[in-house]
Every structure is written in C-alpha cells, then in structure tokens.
C-alpha cells in the first residue's frame, strides 16, 4: 500500500505488477491478503477498511467491486483477515481494535483498552486459538480474547510507541518493535518480557518485526534504513542488512520461510 493512494499486488518472482487499485484517500496505511488469495483489504486516512475481490479479468474494474467493511473514527493503522475471508480485524488511530463481518459490514466485537492510537496487530497462529495482540502509542502491547472482547494480558515495558507486534511461531510468545530502538520478546505463559534486542549503536526506532519459520531469527526493520537480524534465543545481533535508501517501514517473512520482503520509504520492496 502506498502513500499516493494506491494499492498494488505484485508477483514476487517476476516482479510484475498484477493489480493496481486507486483509493479515494491519499494515504493507504494498511493492507492484507485474504487467506484464499482472492481478495485484499486496505485502508488508511479514510478511516475505513475496504475489501477488493481480485480479478484477472481485464474488463472488470476492481474499484467497482469494492466493499467498505470497517468504519473507525480515526485512521486505520492495520488490518488482517482472520482464518477465513469472512472476517477482518482492524486497528485504528481512534485507540480501538474491531472485528467485522466482511459480507454484512457488521461490527462483531470491539476492543477497548489502549490509551492512545493502536498501530499494529497480529493474530495468534491458528493452532493456539482466538486471540490477537495489538501495540499502540501508549507504549503497551495488549493480548485480546476475540470472542469476549476482553483484554487478557497487557505489557508495558517499552519506552515509546509500539510500532509492530508479531507472534512467535508457536503462539506462546510475541515480539514487538518500538520507537525506543528496541525489540522485545514477551512470553504469554510467563506473562512477562523475557528478552530485549538492543544495542547502544541502534538509536532509531524499529518499525516492523517478523520471525523466521522456526522462530530462531527475528528480522527487524529500522528508521535508520537498515534491517537487523537478531538471534532470538541468544539475544545477539546476527546480521545487519543494508540496501534501502530510506526508512524501512514494513517487513514480512514469506509463509514458506524461504525469504522475507522489506518495504521502505525509498519506494522499493526488496526480497
């Protein structure tokens, strides 16, 4: 998703653009792929999350089939489909997260508790059940029960905004990246922070984090244009990746774990 109001779907092997949709608002901040691969959801300063079915038919306009699903009272910072194409979880600058039914656009559950903008969310891996974690400008990471809307655990050890949260592959822990230049690992069963990934030389905020398939490596993109690779178990940095010419704003490991992709303010996506 781009700042000029467009959402683009790419083929990562051929580097070709497969689809492009122009959004009515200028700043698209969040996008997500449906589990089936047949639709995408995106949103931003328009305070909404819209779902677009993907079509390879050149005669059909994707914008025409757009469905507005979520409505918040402030910008949409993150969105994610749940296990099916039928429900979407959203996080917003209005300090709440919400679960929506895609078909009817109905609000199924709302999650109140953050004291400021919610910047990110991640769903627990399917084997572990109906919870998700969210991070916000109130420096907190909160774990929610999707069915009851209750916050089950909260963690407040970061010293600044939590920009990104990602579950450990087993679902028993999650990592968070923050503007305080650290990434931290929280264990859900011990209910506390168990590791902190930082170095005195790293002074810029971490904008995005993701784990490798086994959970041994933590990739984190920073505002100083680099990506640091951390050994999750030892707490030490394994590698530093240079290449981007501006802030790294997002990062994701591929589902099969063979590669990861980073997106940056330098207008490129690198695999």
């Amino acid at each position, binding site marked *: 998703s781009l700042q000029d109001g467009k959402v683009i779907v790419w083929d990562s*092997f051929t580097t070709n653009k497969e689809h492009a949709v122009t959004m009515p608002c200028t700043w698209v901040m969040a996008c997500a792929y449906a589990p089936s691969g047949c639709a995408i959801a995106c949103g931003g300063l328009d305070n909404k999350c819209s779902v677009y079915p993907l079509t390879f038919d050149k005669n059909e306009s994707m914008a025409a089939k757009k469905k507005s699903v979520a409505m918040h009272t402030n910008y949409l910072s993150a969105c994610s489909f749940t296990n099916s194409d039928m429900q979407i979880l959203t996080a917003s600058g209005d300090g709440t997260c919400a679960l929506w039914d895609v078909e009817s656009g109905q609000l199924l559950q709302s999650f109140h*508790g953050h004291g400021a903008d919610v910047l990110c969310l991640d769903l627990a891996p399917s084997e572990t059940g109906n919870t998700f974690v969210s991070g916000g400008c109130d420096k907190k990471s909160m774990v929610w029960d999707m069915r009851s809307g*209750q*916050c*089950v*655990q*909260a963690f407040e050890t970061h010293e600044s905004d939590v920009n990104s949260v990602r579950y*450990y*592959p*087993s679902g*028993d*822990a999650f990592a968070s990246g923050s503007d305080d230049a650290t990434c931290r690992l929280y*264990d859900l*069963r*011990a*209910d*506390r922070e*168990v590791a902190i990934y930082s170095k005195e030389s790293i002074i810029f905020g971490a904008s995005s984090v993701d784990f*490798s*398939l*086994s*959970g*041994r*490596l933590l990739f984190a993109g920073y505002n100083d244009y680099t990506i640091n690779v951390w050994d*999750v*178990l030892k707490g030490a940095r394994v590698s530093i990746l240079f290449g981007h010419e501006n802030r790294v704003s997002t990062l994701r*490991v591929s589902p*099969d*774990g*063979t*590669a*990861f992709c980073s997106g940056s303010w330098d207008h490129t996506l690198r*695999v």
Partner: protein
Amino acid sequence: MSSSSTTSISQARKAVEQLKMEACMDRVKVSQAAADLLAYCEAHLREDPLIIPVPASENPFREKKFFCTIL
C-alpha cells in the same frame, strides 16, 4: 467538574477490575517458558530455509545462470 471526576473514577474502577482479573492468571515460571521456546525452536530448525539453506536446485531465489548453446 463533577462529571470529569466521575469519569476518572469509573476509569479507575475499570482499571482495578482489569488488574484484578489479570492478577488471577496462572503464570508459568520463566525457566519453564524459556525452555519451551527453545524446544520449539530446536524442533523446527530443520524446516527453516533461512537457517539451514536448501540445496541450490530447490532455491527459487538462486542466481539463474542460463547457458546458451550455439546452434
């Protein structure tokens, strides 16, 4: 004046309720939790292509060298 103090009282009440709920949680010792994280990692290490590199023939991102034959 009084409405702002009542909202902050109700907010404080909610916070106390939330903390009471969280205090009742069953917690696992960090030594146990850490051991479990380690065990998961060890168990899945072999499946991780970024830790144990896959042979070049199966790597979709390998450098592609095409050899041309002159007919």
